[in-house]
């Protein structure tokens, strides 16, 4: 399995993928504080002073709010596009049979790929955090930001869940759109449930009240959505393995 993780790793760094990967996460890291800083200026230019003063001073919290808006959207979508054909590409091109024919376990392929994607997402997420953090402490007072590590970890896990779901969808349907489609459906369901049925177990609630959490350190229960996410991730891994084990190649 180690050998296959290394292959996935090489697939990032020996192809052009690493470039897209780093550009996306570094650029997003810069965009967060940049957008936070420039938005009031743009509003002032467009609408005049009275409006902009209503928004108040820009603070470190605004910079991180941009992070929570951009990284799970553009960052995650970009990442999903990169890995959405992770299984189907190998099955369609036929690169995998050679290794299964050497005795590599089918299960190992699934686990290696998920582990490699998890590592890459972790690295990308940390890069964005790092860049945003450096700008934030340069321009503003970071010490006013509350609960940041937990909030960041929550969105990290949330995104990881969708990486797993995309992988499962891709494994089952053998198509790029299948993976992205399954993620889309799950996301819509979670948003729907979060809007109409208030539940502390819904992973999407990790996006609720971020502003309040960062600014006022309000009480927030993280453990329930974390547990839901971990349970769903285990389900994804199990289903992917079960399905792939019974797949004719």
């Amino acid at each position: 399995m180690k050998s296959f993780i290394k292959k996935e790793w090489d697939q990032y760094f020996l192809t052009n993928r690493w470039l897209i990967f780093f550009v996306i996460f570094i650029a997003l890291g810069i965009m967060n504080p940049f957008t936070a800083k420039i938005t009031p200026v743009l509003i002032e230019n467009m609408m005049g002073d009275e409006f902009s003063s209503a928004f108040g001073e820009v603070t470190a919290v605004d910079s991180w709010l941009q992070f929570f808006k951009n990284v799970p959207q553009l960052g995650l979508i970009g990442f999903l596009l990169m890995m959405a054909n992770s299984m189907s590409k190998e099955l369609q091109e036929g690169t995998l049979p050679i290794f299964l024919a050497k005795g590599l376990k089918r299960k190992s392929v699934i686990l290696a790929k998920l582990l490699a994607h998890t590592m890459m997402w972790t690295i990308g997420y940390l890069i964005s955090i790092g860049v945003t953090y450096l700008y934030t402490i340069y321009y503003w007072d970071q010490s006013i930001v509350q609960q940041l590590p937990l909030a960041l970890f929550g969105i990290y896990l949330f995104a990881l869940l969708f990486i797993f779901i995309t992988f499962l969808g891709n494994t089952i349907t053998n198509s790029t759109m299948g993976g992205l489609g399954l993620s889309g459906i799950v996301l819509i369901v979670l948003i729907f449930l979060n809007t109409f049925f208030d539940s502390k177990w819904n992973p999407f609630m990790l996006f609720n009240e971020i502003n309040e959490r960062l600014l006022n350190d309000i009480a927030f229960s993280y453990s329930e959505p974390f547990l839901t996410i971990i349970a769903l991730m285990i389900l994804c891994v199990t289903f992917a393995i079960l399905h792939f084990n019974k797949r004719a190649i």
Partner: protein
Amino acid sequence: MNNLDTLVEYLPFLIPLIILQYGLAIYAIVHIIKHPNYKFGNQVMWIIISLFLSFIGPILYFMFGKGDDA
């Protein structure tokens, strides 16, 4: 606040963004010229897309336009 001050204040953003944007565009264009086979479209189209659609253009090229054995 005059324009120069504004510019200086935003330089820490602008410099890395510009480096990233043009670095990526140049890298993509060199790749497009060196590997003249594409999943779809032609050389001129991809060069224009990479040059004028900042960030998105080169990424589109590497994800969807780049030929398989390139």
